[in-house]
């Protein structure tokens, strides 16, 4: 089994806000991130897929194809956008780094031919990142 990782970058605006809470509650929990005018980050996405090496091509996946999938499914939707206002999944979910990783997993799952999605890692900045492996806790 080979694990292959492809990076992509996008720059987006967002803010954190829970509509069920008061302004004071949002500001207490989310701090500066609750500023309704938004702020932004240069995000780095690392997508790791797992698969076997094709004996003819020597590839697990065609990197050009993976790059195009990331561009189509994620970068073209997120880059230079306001995540809260312009990306459908964040009309209801708060665009935290954790939720962005989960959302990108849901966008990519099943879309990469000949490989299994292994991990989605999203860096909000060099010192903060979230990983999602497609794992759910049943409540």
């Amino acid at each position, binding site marked *: 089994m080979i694990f292959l990782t492809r990076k992509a970058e996008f720059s987006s605006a967002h803010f954190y806000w829970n509509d069920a809470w008061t302004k004071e509650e949002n500001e207490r929990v989310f701090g500066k991130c609750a500023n309704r005018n938004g702020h932004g980050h240069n995000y780095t996405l690392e997508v790791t897929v797992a698969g076997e090496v094709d004996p003819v091509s020597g590839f697990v996946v065609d990197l050009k194809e993976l790059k195009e999938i990331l561009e189509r499914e994620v970068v073209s939707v997120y880059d230079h956008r306001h995540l809260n206002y312009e990306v459908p999944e964040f009309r209801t*979910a708060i665009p935290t780094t*954790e939720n962005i990783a989960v959302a990108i997993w849901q966008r990519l799952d099943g879309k990469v031919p000949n490989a299994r999605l292994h991990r989605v890692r999203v860096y909000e900045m060099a010192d*903060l990142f979230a*990983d*999602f492996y497609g794992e*759910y806790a049943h409540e």
Partner: protein
Amino acid sequence: MSNSSSSPIAFLSRRYHFSASHRLHTDAYDEQRNRDVYGKCNNPHGHGHNYTVQVTFRGPVNAETGMVCNLGDLDAFARTNLLEPFDHTNLNTLKCFADAVSTTENLSIEVQRIFAEFPYARLERVHIEETGNNSFDCTGDSTPGRF
């Protein structure tokens, strides 16, 4: 998120930076053996590093906050329990290294012990970079195998 019957389990990683001096030396060895084993790191005057500590927490993404844990809580915990006690110190003078050599292996075990006490999420891994070329991972009792 869209899967209302279950919470996604995510891993949140945060990196902290501190600078400290140390000297690798053990009283269990004589002077010559200390020099042989620890080389430059045994210099009696000590030397220093810019350490990077990366802590990873695992947990369900809270439906109300979208978070594994609140970053403000984690940063405050790190400030009190990691940065204030360790930054701009000589590691050999700290209580945790009174009876242990201040290698980054031992440092990672100590940092693992510290962040395991963070009350709001489960610590998965501690990764410490002593320099750009040396790094150490400590998983404590949690399951190894993630990367």
